[in-house]
């Protein structure tokens, strides 16, 4: 059976003030039916651009998909070749998305009720009492204690955690087969973050829905995902089962991301910074894009652009030393 979502050799570039920036460079990623895949990387690595491309939500004036295919569903239709009208039937119905900042994702001048009912009206043609009953059920499902009152509220009357629950309810309204969650808990408190993530995990399992989770925090991804892909400077540098990638990472960048996490209770361990900044991918030329920041880089890392190779333990890794002798740190 083909995967539910199959991104193949995706290339996206942006034209900013006459310059072309290669945000995503031949990225391939699959998400299986009911699978949870984490996409990790620092700001500017191209993870959000990749997922926005799936829904074709890139800024029209500046963003361009210059290559690749994004196939979805049992018949593997190419989303990039679909007319806009048909794409509208997929967005929110078969694939939906939850964003980082629930305040900007919700319309401040409409009540939650009208925003929730709109989803039903557009995708299902439901109105009035039918839509109302369905949205009350949905709000209860995402753990809102008083769905009737919450429905009547405006977004600003709700806390950050509540807003994210309402947004999640809207995303789940049409029982999508794939949910894309872009940093869904980054703007939230640690304790609320824990609650929203367990809710997401719960909903995903209950509906056997596929989940593509985007985060800069490997810890968050590790708690939820089956498989993880790590992006750096527009390309995937390591990909594989969470149980293996996070336990025995092969790419120095994955290791660095793990070491940047705080280790509570370890007397102040962890939180090792990664010095330097992310370069513009393609402009780096024929070398490993992480080499300038890498602590174990050799001369060969600066001489050629490494390809993704099979890694021991499953998955792929774009690092010659990392694949050759994996456990060396």
């Amino acid at each position, binding site marked *: 059976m083909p995967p539910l979502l199959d991104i193949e050799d995706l290339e996206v570039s942006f034209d900013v003030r006459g310059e072309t920036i290669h945000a995503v460079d031949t990225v391939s990623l699959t998400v299986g039916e009911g699978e949870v895949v984490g996409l990790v990387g*620092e*700001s*500017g690595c191209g993870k959000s651009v990749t997922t926005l491309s799936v829904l074709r939500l890139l800024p029209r004036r500046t963003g361009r998909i210059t290559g690749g295919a994004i196939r979805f569903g049992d018949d593997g239709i190419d989303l990039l070749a679909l007319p806009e009208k048909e794409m509208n039937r997929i967005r929110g119905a078969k694939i939906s998305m939850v964003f980082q900042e629930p305040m900007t994702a919700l319309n401040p001048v409409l009540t939650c009720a009208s925003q929730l009912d709109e989803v039903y009206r557009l995708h299902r043609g439901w109105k009035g009492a039918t839509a109302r009953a369905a949205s009350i059920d949905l709000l209860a499902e995402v*753990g*809102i*204690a008083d769905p009737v009152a919450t429905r009547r509220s405006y977004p600003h009357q709700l*806390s*950050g*955690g*509540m807003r994210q629950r309402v947004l999640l309810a809207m995303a789940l309204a049409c029982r999508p087969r794939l949910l894309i969650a872009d940093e869904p808990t980054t703007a939230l*408190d*640690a*304790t*609320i*973050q*824990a*609650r929203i*993530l*367990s*809710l997401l*995990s*719960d909903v995903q399992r209950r509906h056997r829905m596929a989940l593509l989770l985007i985060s*800069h*925090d*490997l*810890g*968050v991804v*590790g*708690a*939820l995902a089956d498989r993880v892909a790590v992006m750096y400077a527009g390309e995937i540098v390591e990909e594989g089962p969470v149980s293996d990638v*996070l*336990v025995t990472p092969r790419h120095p960048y994955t290791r*660095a*991301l*793990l070491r*940047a*996490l*705080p*280790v*509570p*209770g*370890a*007397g*102040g361990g*962890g*939180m*090792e*910074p*990664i*010095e330097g*900044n992310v370069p513009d991918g393609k402009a780096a030329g024929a070398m490993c894009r992480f080499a300038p920041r890498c602590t174990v880089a050799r001369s060969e890392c600066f001489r050629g652009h490494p390809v993704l190779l099979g890694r021991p333990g499953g998955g792929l890794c774009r690092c010659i030393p990392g694949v050759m002798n994996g456990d060396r740190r």
Partner: protein
Amino acid sequence: MSGGKEIFRARAVVKEYIPGRGFFGRSRRPVRALDGVDLSIDEGEVVALVGESGSGKSTFARIAVGLEPPTSGSIRLGGIDIAPGDKAALRAARRRMQIIFQDPSGSLNPRITAGEALAEVIRVHRRAPRRAAKEAAVDLLERVGLGGDDYRRYPHEFSGGQRQRIAIARSLAASPRFLVADEPLSALDVSIQAQILHLLIRLKKEFALTLLFITHNLAVVENIADRVAVLYRGRIQEEGPAGLLLRTPLHPYTKELVAAAVLFRPGGGRPVADLSSAVLPDPPAAEGCPFEPRCPIARARCVGARIEAIDTGGGRKVACLRATGEDTPA
């Protein structure tokens, strides 16, 4: 750090906000953001104030540096009372204390270059002539890990982490002794968070700073703080040395914060049931433990009388009848 010279002291700080009149002109009940906060910080010490949104931690930060007056209670910095609105005292104290915020773009003027922003503060606070101020600004940029070339660049030309470096440099331009950092890491990537945290640790030593570090994330405090105070609904629930408090939290709220911090670390495991409880309950109606409606071990005695923090030895204090054994009848 105990036994050092006290540099900052908050005593019984209360802050009430009167919400705007209701739609039909009905007056509303005041909202108590801080409810009797006592906190003292010794010279050279780093104290972390931890709590979730709405706990009052940012209100405390603003009151601590005199940006807002408390409704009652007092703030003393270096022995000078800054609370009563004595403008001259406040201005003198301002030179010795600074604050940095979560969102660096919001606190930088987009039309002033990084260097000019620093030079201006140096001219005003250190009364330095123009040229000396510029040299000092370049020096500061370098000390926060930026280059002298960055002097001429505007805030939008920097990344989020770099902007936070500029905000930190600007706070240091006034040569403060006491720095309040209000969620300085929250808007940043994990890898950049580590950079900024290490920068703060280094600068703390270089500039002999005393630091009040405010965060919602207990996971990061052990790397920087000597002592931690946990704030919940305007009251300090637990206070103690950072390592001890993280390893053996006494208050059920601190326990929940520690659980949330450990949860999403590699090897921390999947979400657990006790954190997945659907919604947070409403605030408590009256006196008593503010955490009671959410507390898994609450007893009838926890509502009613106000619960004061009790010294449990080893520099620890906790405001919980269950944790201190006060609930067992004598």
